[in-house]
């Protein structure tokens, strides 16, 4: 052919082609090439696949999804239309599960450490071993503790879980005989729950009824990007914008702020000041929602809230003896106390100076929000909550829902609908003397100590203080830890103050990590047990709520199991129970045998049966027509597994008005509930609440401690030395810190506004950048009081001057060859948790992530 022989440059060829119409000629002559290809390129797959229902746990939205399975192989993911929570919507991170389950860097069989030295710079020297050898080793270590009466030196650490968790987290720990089952919850958002609990008696994440809302005010929440119900909110956000005004309070121009009417770029940690000013504006403008909050008594001499003026709680009419309340509250409690102690002086002018938000914007947003009452959502995210004094930030912001009557109301903030799953059999009769004695020891996380009240659900010492455990291990306080089993967690990456965890884990004599990947935690493990992937390879269930519904969605093995892996929460504890039984300790196995198949009454005979029976047992009320209690009517187990999800009944709005689980049954602006909890804690240590407040780093004294109020942020580092405040946040592609080894994650990292693909950038305002001489793309170090990380500078207008915004998720030095620049050695970017100090909101036990870290920027 002519054109083949001609020595044409590409450009010249194109010219020729276009000009002379070579096109047609070539095309007509091509067919035989196709034939040639055809011979070697047979389609490998004849039939199409099938969509199978399961669950995505990429974040804690816990969407019900379906996986497209071709010949036992996962190919695609979509939302499960049977779910009334997320329906057919599935967010971008759901697809990445495919790159997780088929990640080459997944551990395919058990491994053991060959290098006895442990440390960040010690290659563990992992070699493959059999399940038998691995479990025998673990069982021997546990028996050693039991034989020496030191079962309290055993610890179970939990990361991502399903509700099968109690098999390994609760029952196994108790029957072995240890108090130390430590969850990750305090690095999640427990302080957020504190806000709703000590106002409306709800220890849980709220759902937000955006289909019926007219104003949505978000605080450090980024729902189109991260947690919770991302898929659902993605499906509704654009339509909601037609109905509702949206304002976002966040030092960073978040993904949600890019789709909002107002951005309030607050100075980090000052949320409480803004919230109190909002409440002040709402009250002084007479905009509280009277049907919920009530109103001034018709005879009261005072009829309005006037800035800076106290209001007497009671008055006496002329000629009468009995006192009357100045303000007759309906479903709330303590409004006048709140006004007098906290709100009366919190003018917009006062707040403007503190928050960096203009007086006009404060007034405009507060009034706009309140005028939409009761269909006005005050959406409290981790931002104002997960700070050193964050429990009060959570209360101050959440209290606005009380003022506008949106609590439990149409277009407002809702609790989870009722669901009817059961519980696993009780372990008590399988706990022998050793176990009972062991369990009486103190927990390793310091919960309930004087300094860590951890007031979950009104009970001092009932909340977890996850991140404290690293210090406890290092200090052997309350005791040393000899054996650890941990699953699907990665504390040396996900907990602030990562270096403490590296040191602590290096000191533990025997650690087992159940994991899909060789994570940073794994680096310190003696035995590594490869776990199944929740979405494709595991039996389990989770419950989740949104769209005014709750669903219980199944995790199912939907693909062929290819590697020598087992399920973390069911199969592995069963197999371990068998090994313990071989060694003369069969209590755990006997207990697990009680998890009988409700259909046949059979006890499980092996780990596979156990995983399935346990799930059927605990979800029976949902699928067995004989046990029907409400919600979707399913015809049996088969029906449940095919649909993959059970949906609750619709929401009953306002059912909790006057019946809230607080001391007063009302929405408490003056929290008798918190007062009782704090009193109990102070009495335990024979001290005053004020002293407890001081010890726990809070500023409030007296009655203020029981109210939503402003506390100044507690910050590590002086401004003179560390000029910038770090703003940490979560990526829309994060699968909880587990997706950085996916190429899709890296390729699309710039889907987070301001971020860059294949990079980890610290976003700096151009005003600051020119001050410190930093250019776009410069390699920099961020240095805080406790550590330093390397990353890339990005000049971006979406950050408040004086702050540096950086996404959490990168900075892995292990996990895989994509996540790390050099596996085991060099991180890709920097982990924010390396520079965020380990500090706490002590009343909730939460780790602080926000508004506590000052940094300086050094150009490399």
């Amino acid at each position, binding site marked *: 052919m002519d054109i*083949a022989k001609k020595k044409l440059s590409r450009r010249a060829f194109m010219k020729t082609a276009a000009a002379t119409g070579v096109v047609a000629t070539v095309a007509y002559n*091509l*067919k035989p090439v*196709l034939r040639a290809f055809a011979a070697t390129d047979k389609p490998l797959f004849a039939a199409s696949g099938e969509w199978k229902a399961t669950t995505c746990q990429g974040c804690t939205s816990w969407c019900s999804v379906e996986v497209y399975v071709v010949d036992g192989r996962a190919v695609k993911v979509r*939302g499960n239309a049977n779910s009334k929570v997320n329906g057919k919507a599935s967010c971008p991170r759901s697809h990445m599960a495919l790159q997780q389950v088929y990640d*080459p860097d997944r*551990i395919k069989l058990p491994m053991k450490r060959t290098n006895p030295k442990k440390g960040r710079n010690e290659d563990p020297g992992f070699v493959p071993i059999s399940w038998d050898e691995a479990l025998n080793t673990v069982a021997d270590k546990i028996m050693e503790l039991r034989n020496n009466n030191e079962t309290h030196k055993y610890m179970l650490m939990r990361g991502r879980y399903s509700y099968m968790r109690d098999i390994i987290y609760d029952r196994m720990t108790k029957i072995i005989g240890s108090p130390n089952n430590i969850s990750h919850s305090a690095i999640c958002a427990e302080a957020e729950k504190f806000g709703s609990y000590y106002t409306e008696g709800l220890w849980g994440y709220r759902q937000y009824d955006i289909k019926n809302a007219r104003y949505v005010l978000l605080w450090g929440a980024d729902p189109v990007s991260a947690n919770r119900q991302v898929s659902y909110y993605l*499906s509704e956000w654009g339509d909601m914008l037609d109905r509702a005004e949206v304002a976002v309070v966040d030092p960073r121009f978040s993904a949600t702020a890019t789709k909002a009417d107002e951005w309030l770029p607050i100075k980090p940690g000052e949320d409480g000041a803004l919230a109190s000013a909002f409440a002040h504006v709402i009250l002084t403008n007479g905009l509280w929602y009277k049907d919920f909050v009530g109103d001034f008594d018709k005879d009261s001499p005072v009829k309005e809230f006037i800035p800076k003026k106290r209001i007497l709680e009671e008055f006496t009419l002329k000629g009468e003896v009995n006192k009357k309340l100045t303000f007759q509250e309906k479903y709330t409690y303590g409004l006048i106390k709140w006004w007098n102690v906290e709100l009366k002086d919190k003018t917009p002018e006062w707040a403007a100076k503190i928050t960096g938000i203009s007086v006009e914007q404060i007034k405009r947003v507060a009034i706009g929000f309140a005028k939409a009452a009761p269909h006005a959502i005050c959406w409290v995210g981790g931002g104002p909550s997960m700070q050193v004094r964050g429990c009060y930030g959570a209360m101050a912001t959440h209290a606005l829902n009380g003022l506008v009557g949106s609590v439990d109301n149409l277009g407002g903030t809702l609790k989870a609908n009722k669901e009817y799953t059961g519980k696993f059999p009780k372990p008590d009769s399988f706990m022998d003397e050793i176990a009972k004695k062991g369990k009486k020891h103190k927990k390793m996380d310091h919960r309930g100590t004087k300094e860590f009240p951890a007031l979950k659900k009104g009970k001092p010492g009932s909340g977890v203080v996850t991140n404290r455990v690293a210090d406890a291990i290092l200090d052997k306080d309350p005791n040393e830890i000899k054996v650890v089993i941990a699953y699907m967690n990665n504390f040396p990456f996900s907990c602030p103050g990562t270096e403490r965890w590296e040191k602590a884990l290096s000191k533990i004599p025997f650690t087992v990590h159940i994991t899909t990947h060789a994570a940073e935690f794994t680096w310190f493990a003696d035995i590594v047990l490869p776990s199944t992937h929740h979405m494709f390879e595991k039996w389990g269930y989770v419950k989740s709520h949104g769209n005014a519904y709750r669903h219980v969605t199944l995790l199912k093995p939907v693909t062929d199991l290819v590697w020598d892996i087992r399920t973390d929460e069911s199969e592995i504890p069963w197999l371990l129970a068998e090994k313990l039984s071989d060694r003369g300790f069969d209590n755990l196995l006997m207990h697990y045998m009680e998890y009988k198949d409700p259909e046949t009454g059979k006890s499980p005979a092996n780990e596979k049966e156990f995983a399935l029976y346990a799930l059927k047992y605990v979800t029976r009320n949902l699928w067995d027509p004989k046990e029907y209690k409400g919600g979707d009517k399913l015809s049996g187990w088969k029906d449940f597994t095919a649909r993959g999800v059970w949906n609750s009944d619709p929401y009953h709005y306002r059912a909790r008005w006057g019946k809230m689980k607080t001391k007063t049954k009302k929405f408490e602006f003056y929290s008798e509930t918190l007062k009782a909890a704090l009193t109990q804690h102070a009495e335990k240590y024979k001290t005053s609440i004020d002293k407890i407040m001081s010890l726990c780093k809070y500023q409030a004294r007296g009655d203020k401690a029981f109210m939503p109020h402003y506390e100044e942020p507690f910050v590590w580092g002086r401004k003179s030395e560390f000029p910038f405040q770090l703003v940490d946040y979560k990526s829309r592609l994060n699968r909880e810190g587990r997706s950085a080894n996916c190429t899709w994650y890296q390729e699309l990292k710039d889907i987070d506004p301001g971020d860059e693909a294949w990079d980890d950038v610290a976003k700096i305002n151009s005003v600051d950048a020119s001050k410190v001489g930093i250019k776009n793309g410069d390699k920099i170090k961020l240095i805080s009081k406790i550590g330093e990380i390397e990353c890339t500078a990005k000049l971006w207008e979406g950050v*408040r001057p004086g702050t540096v915004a950086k996404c959490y998720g990168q900075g892995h030095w292990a996990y895989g060859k994509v996540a790390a620049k050099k596996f085991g050695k060099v991180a890709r970017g920097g982990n924010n948790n390396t520079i965020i100090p380990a500090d706490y909101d002590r009343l909730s036990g939460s780790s602080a992530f926000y508004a506590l870290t000052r940094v300086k920027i050094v150009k490399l």
Partner: protein
Amino acid sequence: MLKIKNKKNAAGNILQKKKVSRRDFLKMSGAVAVSVAGAMSAKEVFADKKPLSGKRLAMVLDLQRCTGCGGCIISCKNENNLQEGATWSYKKSTTAGKFPNVRYDYIPTLCNHCEKPPCVEVCPTSARHKADGDIVAQEPELCIGCLACMEACPYEGVIYFNEEETHRFWRDRKALIKGCTDSPEDVSKDVKGRVVPYYNPDREQNKKGSGLRRKGIVEKCTFCDHRVKKGKLPYCVMRCPAEARIFGDLNDPNSKVNQVIGKYRPMRLKEHLGTEPKVFYVRNYNPAVYKKSVGSL
């Protein structure tokens, strides 16, 4: 470790960076030359069952519904077995303004399936051609990788050139932890995938070379021809959690696409060039309200 190049925004740059060497070009053309003998009509190559004939398929992107989540980009890569670095569906995002008056703009992008596609004009082999449904189609087996289409296309980043053997990530034979993890190549074998472990066989539809495209050719969005021929909507349309992508026939006056572009004034990219894109944009990414004001001096 395997290097993965990120070629975002580089679609146009490839032309500047890497000129196809004469030798490469001859190789490709050589293959073509061999074929002369058994010449058959091009019509058979593109033989369809013609359920789409007479249709003028178009996509409308509702920017208000769009949340900029990138689900379309990932799901497209998933559906069409795209290699690392390649995108058929992509986006343009910009941050404008000065703190605190900042705006973020986001538009999803893809091949515009122009009514008057310059790429079809210049393609020397008719690998790029108009197919039924007025889809600007790409026949992998006919492509010789001359890159003329990339040069002619006025839109950035919608055509991707397979400079090297595709899916190098999955062809790697090194395991991370010896004996404990698999090499990428082995993973794919273990699960009986095809190069890619989550390989989507539906992309092939018995059309040779379209499941995984080979080295030395270009590839781009086909409006999921393999799906639309079977009466299924393009995968990005199905997976957009916000239902921001609307697909249909411009020739049907009552189609949803016509309803929507009849209601809102649509925007098309580089409309002034006269390519007549069939990808339309309606509404604003952020329809924010502001307080009424006439401003001041």
